[in-house]
């Protein structure tokens, strides 16, 4: 149980208003594009119109003659500094600027620097590039065909196959399938999509030739890791690099990798000695930076006649595009995809993933998810529904029958994860009650008699978030701990800095609430700073819902160190022994004499003015927290849809989301995160797709055709919660930002399939557009 603080203190559980809002609603946010430095110049990227072509020549003469143009950098120029290629975050390398050939449409070919952004764009148009087109590989299923063009002739292995990864007991799983009386199979594509945060990626690189210090204002979810990578790859001493990640306009995984534009801006600033700004356009963002998903998956479940699942077998083809630029822990080529057994108690499982190259933009990053967990949750929740339909069982009952039971935690999955805590039935029961499940099923029956199409979809997902632990998780070799440093000032106010970086999650408020909870210093008296690598302690950044599980934990641990020291000071001030003191939010008092007490503010003052002999002055602490395990939030989502038979349009009538993320820091912020994640899930289920034609031309490259829901398409979300604390987190929290995006796509798709199941429909791939549904209705003779 978490002690309840007063609203004035504003510790955990209080829905306090966000500290960061004031500047944003007054137009005083400071995003990277708002950074203006004296003498600053602008970069613009020249990109390939072809998906696969030999680079015959680049003529920059005309462009150079345009007044205002300062420099044009090509791959050949970078090669001289050994920077034409850079390592990706996953054992591959990626061209910064093309040399030899281009491998995807919109690939970076040259970087133009000019005095203003209009001139830079003009000059980019004047760069003449001669290409010789090569055969294009778009379909990942054809990547390993004998006649497929080999894309990466830079690699020793002359193959488009990147990796094979498998986990689980193949023999035991196969045996279960041989003997199983009931089996179900689903082929499902988690389609290529893009996080598309509203702010695109960009930077201002500022190299000061006099001090030799490089300052990079960067749209970065992981500023410390990026600083280290700049040092390792660019050869700049790390103490001379300062990465500043100011306000970030959404990330969702898109701002984890390092992109060629950043490197070019740094090179240009090193060369010219002036600040260079590079901000990509939306189209550049969608066409060239970290895409997500593109998993082509097959799941099979073996079960007994009563509907008890026995084994899960998963085979997946992963399309990584031209370079494997996945941003995930190095031991996991397919991320945490092997959490695909979900909330269910399987005896045996086997999962294999093969990655291939195609002529598409490189990736794939974790789009609002903990490294491929969205793919996994979608697959298992789809497969469970297919099997329930096969057995003609109600999908809620079927889930209940197969859930991992609360008394089995900590629960070891057949694919090697240890779930910390869970109560899946509790969350599902709550969601069923909130939505009025029985009545809805009756209504559906009535509607079917009248020929109307209504569906109910369930998703009882399990998430795995909060990486570390360091023994298992690292990014490019850097262990995935995270940090917090707290300094309490003489007047009892505090400043705290973390290794994470908010992109809208509200860290300035929630971390302050943790300090308030632990020390009794009101949250309003606590300033949170992140994103300056010169001042904040080292950390791996914010993605994979890891801020609360790691830096949040570090904040509590650092606060507890401060409390220990505060106790020594209090004993000195109260002239008693430490053993006689007890803590109550915000103060130490003498046992049995509560009037004899010292507040944390009095103690802080004494830490600078009246220090006990033998004790160091000051009241501050730092903690680098390495979590003992991931945390496993979960939830039960229920979606109700009506389908228009004439147009194939799916209307989401209701959506109930019950989330369990353990103990909650700020329920208002958690609910906001759920709303946002559900909306992105809706987009994935019904709208978002980065598609390519047979020539490798990107079909979802602008917001005209990469569809993002507006307020009109977005339904009203109904939220609820249960609370199953994490047993290993210092205050029992689990992380939540990604749950709604991970859990919801399956609920939407299950609802649509449920609406059409009586017609024999077993699966429809996302995005479920009206056209796709209409085609199904036509095929099934529902519309003529």
């Amino acid at each position: 149980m978490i002690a309840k603080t007063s609203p004035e203190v504003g510790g955990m559980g209080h829905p306090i208003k966000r500290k960061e809002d004031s500047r944003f609603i007054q137009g005083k946010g400071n995003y990277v594009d708002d950074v203006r430095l004296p003498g600053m110049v602008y970069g613009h990227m020249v990109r390939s119109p072809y998906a696969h072509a030999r680079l015959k020549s680049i003529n920059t003469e005309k462009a150079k003659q345009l007044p205002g143009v300062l420099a044009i950098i090509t791959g050949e120029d970078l090669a001289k500094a050994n920077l034409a290629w850079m390592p990706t975050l996953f054992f591959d390398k990626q061209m910064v600027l093309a040399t030899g050939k281009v491998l995807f449409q919109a690939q970076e070919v040259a970087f133009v620097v000019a005095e203003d952004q209009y001139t830079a764009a003009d000059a980019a148009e004047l760069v003449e590039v001669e290409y010789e087109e090569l055969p294009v590989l778009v379909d990942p299923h054809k990547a390993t065909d004998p006649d497929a063009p080999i894309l990466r002739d830079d690699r020793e292995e002359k193959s488009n196959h990147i990796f094979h990864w498998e986990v689980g007991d193949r023999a035991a799983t196969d045996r279960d399938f041989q003997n199983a009386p009931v089996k179900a199979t689903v082929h499902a594509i988690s389609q290529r999509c893009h996080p598309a945060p509203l702010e695109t990626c960009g930077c201002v690189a500022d190299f000061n030739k006099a001090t030799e210090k490089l300052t990079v204002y960067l749209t970065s979810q992981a500023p410390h890791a990026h600083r280290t990578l700049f040092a390792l790859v660019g050869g700049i001493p790390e103490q001379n690099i300062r990465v500043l990640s100011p306000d970030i306009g959404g990330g969702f995984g898109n701002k984890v990798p390092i992109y060629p534009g950043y490197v070019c801006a740094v090179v240009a600033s090193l060369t010219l000695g002036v600040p260079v700004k590079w901000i990509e356009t939306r189209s550049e963002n969608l066409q060239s930076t970290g895409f997500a998903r593109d998993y082509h998956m097959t799941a099979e479940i073996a079960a007994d006649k009563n509907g008890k699942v026995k084994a899960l077998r998963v085979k997946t083809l992963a399309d990584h595009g031209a370079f494997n630029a996945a941003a995930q822990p190095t031991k996991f080529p397919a991320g945490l995809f092997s959490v695909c057994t979900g909330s269910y108690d399987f005896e045996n499982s086997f999962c294999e993933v093969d990655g291939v190259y195609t002529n598409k933009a490189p990736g794939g990053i974790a789009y609002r998810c903990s490294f491929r967990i969205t793919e996994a949750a979608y697959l298992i929740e789809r497969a469970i529904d297919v099997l329930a339909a096969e057995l003609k069982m109600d999908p809620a009952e079927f889930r209940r029958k197969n859930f991992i039971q609360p008394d089995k935690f900590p629960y070891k999955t057949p694919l090697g994860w240890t779930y910390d805590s869970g109560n899946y039935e509790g969350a599902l029961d709550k969601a069923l009650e909130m939505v009025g499940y029985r009545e809805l099923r009756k209504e559906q029956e009535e509607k079917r008699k009248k020929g109307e199409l209504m569906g109910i979809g369930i998703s009882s997902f399990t998430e795995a978030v909060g990486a570390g632990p360091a023994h298992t998780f690292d990014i490019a070799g850097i262990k995935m701990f995270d940090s917090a440093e707290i300094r309490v000032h003489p007047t009892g106010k505090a400043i705290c800095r973390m290794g994470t970086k908010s992109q809208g999650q509200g860290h300035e408020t929630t971390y302050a609430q943790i300090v308030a909870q632990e020390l009794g210093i009101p949250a309003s008296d606590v300033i949170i700073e992140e994103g300056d690598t010169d001042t904040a302690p080292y950390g791996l950044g914010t993605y994979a819902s890891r801020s609360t599980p790691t830096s949040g934990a570090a904040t509590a641990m650092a606060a507890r160190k401060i409390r220990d020291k505060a106790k020594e000071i209090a004993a000195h001030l109260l002239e008693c022994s430490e053993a006689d003191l007890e803590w109550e939010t915000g103060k130490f008092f003498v046992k049995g004499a509560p009037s004899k007490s010292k507040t944390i503010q009095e103690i802080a003052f004494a830490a600078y003015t009246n220090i006990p002999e033998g004790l160091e002055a000051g009241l501050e602490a730092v903690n680098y927290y390495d979590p003992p395990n991931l945390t496993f939030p979960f939830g039960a989502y229920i979606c109700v849809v009506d389908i228009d038979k004439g147009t194939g349009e799916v209307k989401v009538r209701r959506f109930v989301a019950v989330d369990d993320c353990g103990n909650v820091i700020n329920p208002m912020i958690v609910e906001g995160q759920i709303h946002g994640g559900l909306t992105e899930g809706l987009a994935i289920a019904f709208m978002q797709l980065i598609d390519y034609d047979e020539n490798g031309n990107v079909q979802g490259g602008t917001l005209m055709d990469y569809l993002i829901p507006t307020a009109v398409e977005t339904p009203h979300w109904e939220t609820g919660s249960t609370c199953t604390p994490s047993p290993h987190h210092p205050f029992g929290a689990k992380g939540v930002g990604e749950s709604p995006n991970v859990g919801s796509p399956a609920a939407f798709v299950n609802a649509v399939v449920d609406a059409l199941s009586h017609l024999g429909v077993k699966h429809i791939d996302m995005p479920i557009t009206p056209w796709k549904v209409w085609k199904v209705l036509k095929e099934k003779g529902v519309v003529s």
Partner: protein
Amino acid sequence: MAKKRTVQVKVNGREREASVEPRTLLVHFIRDYLGLTGTHVGCDTSNCGACTVVLDGKNVKSCTMFAVQADGSELLTVEGLIKDGQWHPLQEGFKQEHGLQCGFCTPGMLMSTYALLQRNPKPTEEEIRWGISGNLCRCTGYQNIVKAVQYAAGEMANKMTEGVAK
């Protein structure tokens, strides 16, 4: 490069002018020449609405106009919402109802809903949703933005009533 033209606007109550190329987009004029960086750029196809400002009383996407087209106009940007140190009820509403997360769409949302409430002081939920349908948000799922606008509409109605009562 075409000959520069002088553009004069009254922005947030102040007369400002600058000499720009005729092709300069209004949003770049606002951000780069007037130094008002609260107005954002989120796309290049007029879809996202992060650049929305109020021009002569109407909400416009400032990425879809040239600065020269705004010559002689009156502009209101997010920086001009605060009056005599008092937040506009919409600003208060966005904070109270948690209508923002990353904050990038927020200035555009504020300006679109400012114009909406000028046109329609008592919008229904559906009218609010249509009113912000030219503004994309990737964080909030819009639900709390709707509540923020309802909060502001209520506050503004209260002020009107108080005004009448006096």
